[in-house]
């Protein structure tokens, strides 16, 4: 490969101008709505618990000849922002870099810009309205349909994702995707159907909400009209791209502790690294996290969608390979 032009950015200067204008409009959007900008730490003593998100490790030394201590680059400002909310910050947003190990692809860069915000007193539906208004800054006239996870799977594949067995999901998946591996987790097959079969068909923008409880992450779990426990979580898909992920946030400290430990047990079972859990988040919830909804949105993907770019590196000055 010829590396001679690798000093150059992959994004055009025109793209970077549009990106800068959008960054400014986002800040103005929140200023007008009286949402406080915060810039929490990127380097933390604790790592994210999600088994399928891998933190990048950093070595901290008190002096060059002293033993190093392992710290973690943040995969999202979620834990820190919730500690601020519990401390009485009110509505807050953060617009900055986060890091995820191993994530390189047409829509992934290991270092990317995330816009994350929290709204005390908001239900998920109100926050979806606000996400719509924010995306409209980049895509004029933007609006998105709202469908539950069940409605989407029934419409696209004719199955109830909450009741189908693992074997049924696996069989259905293999009718559409060449994926001969085995996996005994229902969510793997649901995720494969979602990412490989349904997502590419979602050309019109859609908020998918009421996820299976097993995919709740840090969302509250409630019973839906059919008595099935579902997560108050939503995801926004635009042109088949997963753009944002939001929750009516879990506020119960005991349940928060249980989920962190459950993630840690899952990591162990999968042979993934065991890392320090953020127990200060549990302490913050114990002290009292206000009822709130929060959402994280991939800013680089928003730039891609606004400008019609095919690959994430076209939206970033220097993506992984040239960073």
């Amino acid at each position, binding site marked *: 490969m010829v590396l001679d032009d690798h000093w150059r950015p992959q994004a055009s200067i025109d793209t970077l101008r549009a990106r800068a204008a959008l960054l400014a409009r986002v800040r103005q959007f929140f200023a007008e709505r009286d949402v406080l900008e915060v810039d929490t730490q990127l380097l933390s003593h604790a790592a994210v618990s*999600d*088994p*399928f*998100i891998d933190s990048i490790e950093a070595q901290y030394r008190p002096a060059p000849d002293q033993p190093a201590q392992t710290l973690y680059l943040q995969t999202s400002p979620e834990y820190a922002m919730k500690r601020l909310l519990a401390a009485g910050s009110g509505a807050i947003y953060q617009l900055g870099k986060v890091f995820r190990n*191993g*994530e*390189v*692809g*047409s829509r*992934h860069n290991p270092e990317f810009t995330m816009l994350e915000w929290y709204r005390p007193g908001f239900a998920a539906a109100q926050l979806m309205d606000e996400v719509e208004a924010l995306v409209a800054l980049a895509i004029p006239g933007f609006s998105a349909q709202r469908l539950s996870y069940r409605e989407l799977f029934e419409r696209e594949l004719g199955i109830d994702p909450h009741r189908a067995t693992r074997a049924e999901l696996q069989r259905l998946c293999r009718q559409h*995707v*060449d*994926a*001969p*591996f085995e*996996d005994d987790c229902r*969510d*793997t097959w*649901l*995720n*494969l159907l*979602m*990412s*490989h079969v349904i*997502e590419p068909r979602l050309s019109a923008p859609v908020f998918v909400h009421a996820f299976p409880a097993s*995919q709740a*992450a840090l969302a509250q779990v409630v019973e839906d009209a059919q008595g099935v426990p579902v997560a108050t979580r939503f*995801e926004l898909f635009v042109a088949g791209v*997963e753009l944002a*992920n939001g929750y009516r946030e879990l506020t119960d400290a005991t349940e928060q502790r249980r989920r962190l430990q459950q993630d840690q047990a899952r990591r162990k079972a999968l042979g993934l690294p065991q890392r320090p859990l953020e127990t200060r988040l549990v302490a913050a919830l114990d002290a009292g996290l206000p009822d709130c909804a929060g959402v994280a949105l991939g800013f680089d993907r928003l730039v891609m969608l606004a400008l019609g770019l095919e690959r994430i590196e076209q939206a970033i000055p220097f993506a992984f390979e040239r960073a």
Partner: protein
Amino acid sequence: MATYSSNQFKNGLKVMIDGDPCTMVDVDFVKPGKGQAFTRVRLRNLITGRIWERTFKSNESVESADVMDRDMEYLYNDGEMWHFMEPDTFEQYAADKNAVADAAKWLKEQDKCLITLWNNNPIAVTPPNFVELEVVETDPGLKGDTAQGGSKPATLSTGAVVRVPLFIEQGEVLKIDTRTGEYVSRA
């Protein structure tokens, strides 16, 4: 045999899939929401030429395929097999009809070709991008009509038929682009 884990996949990697050697044409990382990551790979079967997509989960591994491309000189065809020689070692390889496929109509003795070997057997033959071949049959040239343009079929010494300008005569040697099968110029 070496194996590759799905997080090592990259374009051009040669792997064994369902018993056939395949090359990775495009590799993408797919990560749905909070779930585990998948690697979606566009593969080309090097035996059949079939191109399709397969999805792997993280840490799934596949066996590498012992596939390599070598420059060789085309020697002759014995009616059934096409024979090639490695110029440095003088080692000879015989390729069958499936391996040579469409390349057959461009092969001229002593031309340099790219031979794809799997377990040391030829499975594909790529002719040089440009070959020089003699016209063995074409309608007589229409002199004085060159400004008009237009073309006519000409049969070359290897049996290939290409469209050539009207002024080309039998016995002339032409330069042909094998990737498009088009006439380039007189040699």
